[in-house]
């Protein structure tokens, strides 16, 4: 029996769902292994009968909370897909302003039409079995997870920082170029794609299990960042950690 798979989107850019549609090389093989029964971005049919639920996006409305709880009840395995779902991601930046202020900035006089709650990751609402962090999520990690599920194997995320993959990629460390980086405390798995492409790490995959935040802060300070800069940098994708503490 092929497992039934559903994709469900909450507040996000839908880039992670798009990544699934981007599996050109693997899509045909993948469809031999699983039945996709729910995927609003790509299909009309909907089914409430699924084994594996992929959740994309942060939770930002009361209605979203209820919908997510229903999905959790139905799915044997629930996977948070992408940084928004795993960490709240960039959506949580709005949590640092009052909701009134947000509404006024964006909707002006029409603010009263719209009601949202502070953004939160999926596991702030329901239990999550597996995480696929990344903005957007990493295709190889997605496929590895699907294979692991089918083989009855536990999928593990790397528990070491991005520096490992960055070094293996042979990059020049951005600190040597006068920039700063969250790589030393951010969970690897992205193959240091940002540094490899001339940027620095923004922490989109969240922190490793036991990050040495104090040391990272010291290093950032030594390289010219103020405490406020550092906070802003961490907030980019990991803002929820800060408010939930």
């Amino acid at each position, binding site marked *: 029996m092929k497992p039934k798979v559903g994709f469900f989107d909450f507040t996000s850019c839908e880039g992670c769902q798009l990544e699934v549609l981007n599996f050109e090389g693997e899509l045909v093989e993948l469809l031999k292994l699983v039945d996709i029964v729910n995927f609003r971005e790509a299909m009309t049919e909907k089914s409430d009968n699924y084994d594996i639920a992929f959740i994309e996006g942060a939770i930002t409305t009361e209605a979203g909370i209820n919908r997510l709880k229903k999905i959790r009840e139905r799915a044997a395995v629930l996977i948070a897909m992408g940084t928004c779902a795993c960490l709240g991601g960039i959506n949580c930046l709005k949590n640092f302003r009052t909701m009134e202020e947000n509404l006024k900035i964006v909707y002006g006089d029409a603010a009263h039409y719209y009601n949202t709650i502070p953004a939160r990751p999926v596991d702030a609402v329901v239990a999550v079995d597996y995480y696929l962090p990344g903005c957007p999520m990493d295709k190889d990690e997605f496929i590895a997870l699907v294979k692991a599920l089918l*083989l*009855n*194997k*536990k999928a593990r995320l790397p528990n070491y920082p991005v520096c490992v993959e960055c070094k293996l990629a042979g990059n020049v460390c951005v600190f040597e170029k006068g920039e700063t980086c969250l790589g030393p405390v951010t969970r690897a798995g992205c193959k240091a794609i940002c540094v490899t492409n001339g940027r620095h790490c923004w922490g989109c995959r969240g922190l490793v299990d036991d990050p040495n935040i104090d040391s990272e802060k010291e290093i950032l300070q030594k390289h010219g960042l103020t405490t406020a800069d550092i906070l802003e940098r961490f907030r980019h994708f990991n803002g929820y950690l800060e408010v939930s503490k």
Partner: protein
Amino acid sequence: MTKHPSEEKSLYLPRVAEITSVETIAQKEKLFEFNFQDGKELGHKPGQFVEISIFGIGEMPISISSSPTKKGAFELAVRAVGDVTNALHRLSKGATVGIRGPFGNGFPVDEFTGKDVLVIAGGIGLFPLRSLINYVVDNRKNFGRLIILSGSKTANERMLVNELERWQVMEGVELLETVDIGNEKWGGTIGPVTTLFSQIDIIPQNTFAVTVGPPVMYKFVIGECQKKGIPDERILMSLERRMKCGVGKCGHCQINGVYVCQEGPVFSYARIKKDKLTEAI
């Protein structure tokens, strides 16, 4: 580089073995019997281990549980704790796996000749010790006394019960058992395995103590052995480490300068002290 490596075969290629029987020991433990497809013997010593593979899942180290005196097949007793162990538990008779080994030094059974052997097992530590016990049983006249102290968490978690009962009644085997937490059915000793030491009398100069169990147990067992007067060179234990290659290359099992897979897994307490392998116990 004098050898011609290209003529050597891969270190990492397992031989194919078939599962010839599976027996459930307890809730999470099973005993597997294997035969090599090419009909060859494993050719091991008690206390050695193999690397067993389930392709697509992975490879892991498991002690050989059967005695080399058992001909043809060999046995592994495995507790399901993770990927490979669970995958193995899902296999049944007729399935094939990959086996590399035997690896490691094993128990120094030759040194035991004519000596008393005191075996102290904690939990599934009994699995590797079974190879030693049955080796002594099968070569009974070569050894002195065989004393087995076996501890389990609860009465329901006693491992290899049939085997324990067999040894219990066997001539020349002294078996004492205890459980950490008793229940109404359990009429025996209650307490950690070290409580059994007060029930035995040994001649320390003539005894080898061999213990396998969870690392936390070792400190206490060593203490009891020392109290009995057994010299540190004769207190032996098998160390568990993370292991990948089994052949002294990958570095995972290293404690200080020692590669456990090569120089162990069996070490005397004297060696552990000398090489400061303290993180092991």
